[in-house]
């Protein structure tokens, strides 16, 4: 602009400079506000829940991603974790089955590598990978369930794989239904509701939560129950009884015969 057409030179120029600075500041502020409102957020609570981020760290630390993929999408070596739910993670990692050490017919139970809190964090993280999947169940109050009803349900739905009292059983080609002797009530519920590996899925409409609690009560009470007849021999039936019969029964009687009779 030309010097003759301007207004009072000094004051008008300064005001104009301040005004443009103010406009820039306001514009910047508006943009920031707009950005923070409109910018795409990560998954729910991803930025705010410390458990989830801790879980993500665990997911990386224990190499879950090496088989399950960086985002749990699965692949040739491992199934997808998208939508699998917290209960499945709690079960698999809580029983030590995951992380898997080597591929065999079936993932065996072993010493868990994480603490309970860590497992919960991991579960929360995996749950953010996709919607769906059962949550970690609350099994308090299972002792009030009808233990006889639970026994009946157990014999109809569970005994054919896990044996009358949950001592375990054999499936095809090296797979097996494990013994329930180490399973916690929560883990039993989780197994029923998620159907780990080859176990069928007993959803909450197949076996209602009350029925599940009854089954858990039966399993726990049978486990704690005394064997009134003496040594339980694993509670697997005639096979161990035969071994005892031969070794102890026939063995002691033959030893007695050796004592009574002559040996020439």
């Amino acid at each position, binding site marked *: 602009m030309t010097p003759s057409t301007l207004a009072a030179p000094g004051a008008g120029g300064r005001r104009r400079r301040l005004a443009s600075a103010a406009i820039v500041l306001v514009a910047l502020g508006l943009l920031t506000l707009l950005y923070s409102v409109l910018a795409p957020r990560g998954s729910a609570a991803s930025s705010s829940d410390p458990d989830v981020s801790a879980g993500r760290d665990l997911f990386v630390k224990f190499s879950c991603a090496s088989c399950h993929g960086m985002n749990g999408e699965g692949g040739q070596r491992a199934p997808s974790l998208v939508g699998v739910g917290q209960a499945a993670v709690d079960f698999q990692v809580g029983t030590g089955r995951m992380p898997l050490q080597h591929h065999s017919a079936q993932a065996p139970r072993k010493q868990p590598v994480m603490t309970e809190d860590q497992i919960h964090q991991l579960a929360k993280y995996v749950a953010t990978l996709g919607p769906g999947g059962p949550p970690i169940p609350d099994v308090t109050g299972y002792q009030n369930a009808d233990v006889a009803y639970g026994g009946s349900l157990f014999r109809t*739905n569970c005994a*054919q794989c896990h044996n009358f009292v949950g001592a375990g059983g054999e499936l095809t080609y090296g797979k097996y239904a494990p013994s329930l002797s180490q399973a916690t009530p929560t883990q039993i519920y989780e197994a029923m509701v998620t*159907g780990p590996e*080859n*176990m*069928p899925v*007993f959803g909450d*409409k197949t076996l209602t939560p009350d029925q599940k609690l009854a089954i858990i009560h039966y399993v726990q009470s049978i486990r704690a129950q005394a064997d*009134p007849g*003496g040594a339980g021999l694993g509670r697997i039936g005639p096979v161990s009884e035969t071994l005892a019969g031969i070794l102890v029964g026939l063995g002691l009687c033959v030893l007695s015969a050796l004592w009574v009779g002559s040996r020439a």
Partner: protein
Amino acid sequence: MTDETPGTAGTPDEPGQDAPKTAAEASGSVFGRLKHPVSTSGAARQRSSSASAREIEGEVLRRGNMAPDVPDAVRPRRKVGRRRTEGTAAAEAAAEAHLTRPSDSDGTHFLPESEHGESEPLDPREDKFAELLVAGLFTLATIAVLWTCVAYFLIPSHERLGQWMNFSLGGGLAIALLATGAGFILWAKRLLPHDVAVQERHHSYSDEEEELLAEETFLKGVTTLGLGQRKILRRSLLGIVALLPLPAVILLGDLGPLPRKQLRKSGWKAGDRLVDVETKLPIKLGDLEIGGIKTVMPEGFGNAEEHALAPTMLIRFAPGEIRSKKERTWSKNDHVAYSKICTHAGCPISLYEQQTHHLLCPCHQSTFDMANDAKVIFGPAARNLPQLQLDLDGEGYFIAKAPYDQPVGPSFWERG
């Protein structure tokens, strides 16, 4: 074997004699022994060798079978009609002496200790110790028996489902029995003299004479019966004897109903709702998760005892998992229903492997591929499991569209 002199009969220590060449020969031929019976010592044995005959010679029968107060002279001597061989007088005397030694009457005689090597005399202190030991065991047994009796009343019988009672009664009784047994055994081993007894074996067969006499008697009796000659009698007898057992068999006729078509019925009808075997509630679409199973029965047959062929497995597959076309046709919304009763020996199956879709029977390990018509892929079962056609009724509950298209369960002759 023809030599009668004692001690040389067949002893192989003297070379040149006809030593037995085989074990069978060593024991001698039956007829050789029959003609020339020889006792262990080599002496000629009396022909009448059965034990009862021996006793006849023995002092018992000198009493006869009359009352004790009848004097000996009056008792008749029992005639048995057995001939004796002529032995030498010396042999007879030896045999007589052999027989009439006090414990010898039946041919059982004890070998004196000098003959079987137990030469050390028993320390009387050992004998006393043994007696105390046996007495101690019996006393222990007595205490244990008393404990058992007392425990029955005193031990709380419901603690730990009766485990304490079992231990107390059983433990006490076991100690009592074992101690008593041990006491008896030790008594026999330590307190009784170690006598070795030798007894003659009498051959199990009778003398030739007796046998012939028995044969004669029997044949005479048979001839007298006249079955040989009287043909019509014989034939009519055969008739009744053959048929007499028949009523006994026929009377068993109402042991059970005739099977007729019963084995073909499974208890399912078209339109029957599937109900949970435990709760008896019908199954709605959505009750099963993918990979879920349930045991179901036809509505109205809630009790498995009433129709053991009815139990059925309802399985839900993921979409696209069913491979067989027929199976897909009979499925409903990826749900399939198959008979739970194994086609091998009738056990209820239901070991379902969710990922492999295999169904394993725990009894004999027959394995069925549930995604492929329940075909048998391992094990002794020969036939696929029958499939139940499914449908949904108006309210969304599963129903059987038709009963099973074949007899359910193990095979039988008339199955077809």
